């Protein structure tokens, strides 16, 4: 196993404080290794986006990080905790080390500025020594990299299609050559053909540039194909984490199995799609014990009263379920 880039330790993120608050991310431990694509899957409201916003400190109020550490390992130098950086250190860290591609391809670009301005203002903020010609050259290069004609530099966002906008965002994310790129449902707003194209391109770019990716989606089938490891979230906790192929072949947690049963396989015999009965838990009134137990077909004695912990297993995977754990 290669070196870790980001280690999330006991991260807790909530919305609001006190009695009114809800805990959206609970005691999450997750490690992203260098050069790896880590998939993060789960239903809406499972806390995957909150986790991404929390670890980058981008949560808008009333979101608050209530505990934990996010240890970042830079290429050179000592690891540090992102959550304890000062404002100016955080500004330097952002985009330089960790870039993010957001869900809303349509709204991620500022409508009143040209693409060029939005690409180069990152450089202006992070590399003040660059000259204007250098900045423009770099922006052009990034557009070429993501397959957009560099003459679209002077276009405004509304003149580009959704797919092009998302590619501009990916180009923008890579402009400072970050170690980590977090993708929060980057292709959800796009059609299936465009999804493929963009993901293919992303994988190619990743192989060329060697950054690590945290890929957040509710589409487990995409993850099985594109990621090295997958973490499944439910009710703010990670319930299973394993290599992608292992999850696909043999998911241990009933929730993971449910997710896998919710989409058709491309090959193999026809089978009935099962889905998961019930709906995601209300964060304000979490079920006792394992938060999945009211929907779990295999729930038994301890599930309703005790919370199963994520336990490491010898085969490089971990799962939080009383069926598997002792």
């Amino acid at each position, binding site marked *: 196993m290669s070196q870790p880039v980001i280690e999330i330790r006991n991260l807790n993120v909530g919305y609001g404080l006190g009695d009114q608050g809800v805990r959206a991310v609970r005691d999450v431990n997750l490690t992203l290794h260098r050069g790896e694509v880590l998939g993060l899957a789960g239903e809406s409201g499972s806390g995957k986006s909150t986790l991404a916003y929390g670890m980058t400190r981008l949560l*808008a109020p009333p979101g608050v990080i209530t505990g934990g550490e996010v240890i970042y390992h830079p290429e050179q130098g000592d690891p540090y905790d992102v959550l304890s950086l000062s404002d100016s250190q955080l500004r330097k860290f952002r985009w330089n080390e960790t870039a993010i591609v957001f*869900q809303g391809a349509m709204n991620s670009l500022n409508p*009143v*500025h040209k693409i060029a301005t939005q690409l180069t203002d990152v450089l202006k903020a992070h590399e003040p020594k660059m000259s204007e010609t250098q900045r423009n050259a770099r922006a052009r290069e990034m557009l070429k990299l993501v397959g957009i004609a560099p003459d679209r530099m002077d276009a405004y966002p509304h003149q580009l299609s959704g797919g092009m906008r998302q590619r501009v965002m990916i180009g923008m994310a890579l402009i400072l050559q970050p170690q980590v790129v977090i993708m929060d449902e980057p292709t959800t707003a796009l059609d299936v053909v465009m999804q493929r194209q963009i993901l293919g391109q992303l994988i190619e770019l990743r192989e060329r540039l060697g950054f690590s990716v945290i890929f957040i989606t509710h589409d487990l089938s995409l993850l099985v194909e594109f990621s090295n490891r997958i973490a499944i979230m439910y009710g703010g906790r990670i319930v299973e984490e394993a290599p992608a192929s292992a999850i696909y072949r043999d998911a241990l947690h009933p929730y993971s199995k449910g997710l896998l049963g919710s989409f058709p396989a491309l090959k193999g015999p026809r089978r009935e799609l099962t889905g998961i009965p019930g709906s995601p838990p209300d964060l304000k009134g979490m079920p006792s014990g394992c938060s999945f137990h009211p929907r779990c077909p295999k729930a038994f004695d301890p599930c309703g009263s005790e919370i199963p912990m994520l336990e490491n297993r010898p085969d490089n995977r971990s799962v939080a379920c009383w069926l598997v754990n002792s």
Partner: protein
Amino acid sequence: MKYFLQRLAFYLFTAWAAITLNFFIPRMIPGDPVQALITKYQGQLSSQAIDSLYVLFGLDKDAGLWSEYVSYWKQLFSGDLGLSFTFFPTPVSEIISNSLPWTLLLVGITTIISFFLGTGLGILAGWRRGSWTDGLLPVTTFLSSVPYFWLGIIAIYLLTGPDSFFPSSGGFDNGLVPAFDQYFIPSAIQHSLLPALTILISSVSGWILSMRNMMVTVSSEDYITVAHAKGLTDRRVAMSYAARNALLPNVSGFALSLGFIVGGTLLVEIVFSYPGVGFQLFQALGASDYPLMQGIFLIITISVLVANLLADIAYLLLDPRTRKEG
């Protein structure tokens, strides 16, 4: 450019329609200036005197609406707005050119100050919401719902008096002759302070409120989160991303309010007996002075149209989405 010409043609048509209405409306108001004079002198005018008044005002000809309409247009193009009835035989154009600078300076300057001050405070209040600036809001909501003239009456009641620094009416001290000298200018400024403050206080809150609300709306846009994630300085995100987008509705509001400078503060001028266009209009209305009314309406109409055109142009410059290609 084609778009611009289209707009221009539209405004020319609107101007024609407005001028035509402007011609007809005063003629539909019951009563005529001679009747008004008769009432003024409480029937002490002989019938001979009444006849000669009709001849004097040119109301004896009974020329028919159409020929009056044609000659109205002819006069307009030669810059002749007719003679005022009340200030007979002063030309209307002279009365307007005497009162216009008062209004333009008083209301023009306060409108501009009010816009910049209000927008600036609005940006601050919207960006730093949750801080002390939220305390401004109830005050601004209250002030924005107070009518100008009422505030003016209160101001006169509370702040003026025999020993007060603030004069209660007029545009300059009696006994001074309008001229750019060291006696007249301080006096004019002193007289304008109270009406200016009245307008400023009641109009600035509108700008603050609308700008703050737009800032709050824009702050939740995805591109703001992206801008934060890019590690740009808070100031750059606030100005170039949030305020730049939030400004758009306010700018068109501003251009429109420029159009209402000429006629929009009629009541303030009446309350303070300020020698501006609004006060003249008030007097003209009382005396059924058609030519003066028409002249003032014409000026107001044209200024509103010009302001609309300015708003269109400003929008074209500020929002790339409104620009049409080709």
